[in-house]
């Protein structure tokens, strides 16, 4: 499968944007400037981007509590995301949702979700819309390894399967559900196999390898657009930081993350390959890095400086009319 140069550069820009965004959020949380709880995506960048590079704004994505990377990959405006994370007026949810509820329907982002396992049935509904209205659009749900044990996820698999919906179940196996490892919490030990038993193609890929994710999702997307039904992909990529920022991670062996960073940093792996195989130069990529960083500084400052929602906002938008 050959990939356009522009596609690769855009993929890199998004992965870099996620990385810089999350590293900055980490520092901001440590500095105490961010309200609420923040779950960082570092280490998993290639999953969201490898998937969303295949999607347009009219395709839908159901996200999780660890949603920043999904939003950026799906094309949400980073400035508006930051406004939301800082709970400011004009944020993607006008400041009322925060980090765990960022949504942007114009971009096909159905929302981060703080209830583990709630998003797959919702995404299935978006796939039902696509099928009912006869568009060629599809829906994708991100599902953590821990979430993969939640009953709602299996119900979503079954419903999408029997209705042959244009749906993709993208499992993100990052090794842990909170402070518990997958070798303990996952009966049978094979996420993809469990999904496959519902009668859909289900594969496992290295989630730190953009090309592997991109290829697997390409097949799933093609199948969905062709009206052939749902697919499942399990992408394996350990998270680099705590469950939430602040987590002491005593459940992890010392050096586990250092080894990950050294051996399987999705951005390093991507950089090496595209500079080696696709005639992309490090300078080009560094230019992107600089642009991303500069813009991020601007956006964070703007978010911090932005006004809070007015007091009346507490009472509005419960109903359209009441």
């Amino acid at each position, binding site marked *: 499968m050959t990939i356009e140069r522009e596609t690769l550069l855009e993929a890199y820009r998004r992965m870099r944007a996620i990385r810089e965004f999350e590293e900055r959020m980490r520092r901001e949380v440590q500095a105490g400037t961010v309200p609420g709880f923040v779950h960082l995506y570092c280490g998993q960048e290639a999953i969201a981007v490898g998937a969303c590079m295949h999607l347009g704004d009219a395709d839908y994505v159901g996200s999780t509590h660890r949603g920043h990377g999904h939003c950026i990959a799906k094309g949400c405006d980073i400035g508006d995301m930051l406004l939301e994370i800082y709970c400011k007026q004009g944020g993607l949810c006008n400041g009322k949702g925060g980090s765990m509820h960022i949504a942007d329907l114009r971009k096909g982002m159905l929302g981060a979700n703080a209830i583990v396992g709630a998003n797959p049935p919702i995404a299935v509904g978006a796939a039902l*819309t696509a099928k009912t209205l006869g568009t060629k659009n599809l829906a994708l749900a991100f599902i953590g390894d821990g979430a993969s044990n939640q009953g709602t996820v299996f119900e979503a698999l079954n419903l999408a399967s029997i209705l042959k919906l244009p749906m993709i179940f993208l499992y993100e196996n990052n090794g842990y559900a909170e402070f518990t490892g997958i070798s303990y919490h996952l009966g049978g030990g094979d996420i993809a196999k469990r999904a496959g038993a519902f009668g859909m193609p289900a594969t496992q890929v290295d989630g730190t390898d953009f090309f592997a994710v991109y290829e697997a999702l390409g097949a799933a997307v093609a199948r969905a657009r062709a009206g052939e039904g749902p697919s499942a992909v399990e992408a394996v990529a350990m998270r680099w930081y705590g469950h939430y920022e602040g987590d002491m991670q005593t459940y992890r062996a010392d050096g586990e993350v250092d080894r990950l960073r050294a051996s399987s940093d999705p951005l390093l792996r991507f950089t090496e390959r595209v500079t080696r195989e696709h005639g992309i130069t490090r300078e080009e990529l560094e230019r992107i890095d600089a642009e991303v960083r500069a813009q991020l500084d601007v956006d964070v400052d703007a978010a911090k400086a932005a006004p809070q929602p007015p007091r009346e906002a507490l009472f509005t938008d419960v109903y359209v009319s*009441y």
Partner: protein
Amino acid sequence: MALKSIREAINDCLREEMARDPRVVILGEDVCGGLGGSSGIEEAAGGTFGVTAGLAKQFGRARVIDTPITESAIIGAAAGAALTGLRPVAELMFIDFLGVCFDQILNQIAKFRYMFGGRAKTPLVIRTMIGAGVGAGPQHSQSLYAMLASIPGIKVALPSNAYDAKGLLAQAIRDDDPVVFCEHKALYNEQCEVPDGPYTLPFGEANVTRRGNHVTVVAFSRMVLLANQAADKLAREGISVEVIDPRTISPLDTDSIIESVEKTGRLVVVDEATPMCGMASEIVSAIASEAFECLQAPPVKVTAPHTPVPATPHLEAEYVPSREKIERAIRKVLGKTAERAAS
């Protein structure tokens, strides 16, 4: 105009609204029925109680969608479909099954609009069945609508007759907010005159089914019929009862109840649900706080007891508020006045 049962009125409404708006789809268990069966029949059920009969035939299985037994996915899919442009009417066969899909209602559907800062709409209807009286037992006879009414972001309709059922359901389907539409399983065959063709009834507007001056009786769903019967009976004794059917409990038309109590000074609330944290307490509380000065006697609640619904027929009959219990409550709240009125 024609005499229609609640079942027919709901079926007519669904047919009219689906014809009107291609975005309206129905999903649930056996809303059509027969798929995967050996007879190959087009429709084996049309809903467990026949309410969706004929719709699959007319609009096709793409818009009348049979699902597995999977309430979380039914309601969750309805949520996602509503967020993305459809107007789903999901069927939750019995309201007792709330338990297996509650998160999608409580934390998703109800909160999208607020959580997303007003940038989302979730126009869906959950049709469900409430009520005791048919020997369906503890897990198929509950009236759990107060739990739903307590959730900010959800609207709840409780029709008591065919005319209201049709108009309220049409409003629910056209409404841009999520609505739980509660059908009482013992009322499906109740008939009244229903206009032909589509019409809507506004939410939050109570219906005064009886005018009266001595006491205000607020009742819901099937209890409205019993309250009216009690009112008829007492009228012969010169006791003049005003009966109010709120029709929707969220939004709730408190003003109409206050207005009535300002006139009567006395309040009885009749609810088939259990007593704690239910609509009866909610209305008594609202009136006590907002119309305290007009109250001439302590308000009285007539509800089911704080127990599950027994399967035992004669105990179930005892469980559900009866016309007699309503009468007794009215006499109680009237106290001396009752005798005076009677004499």
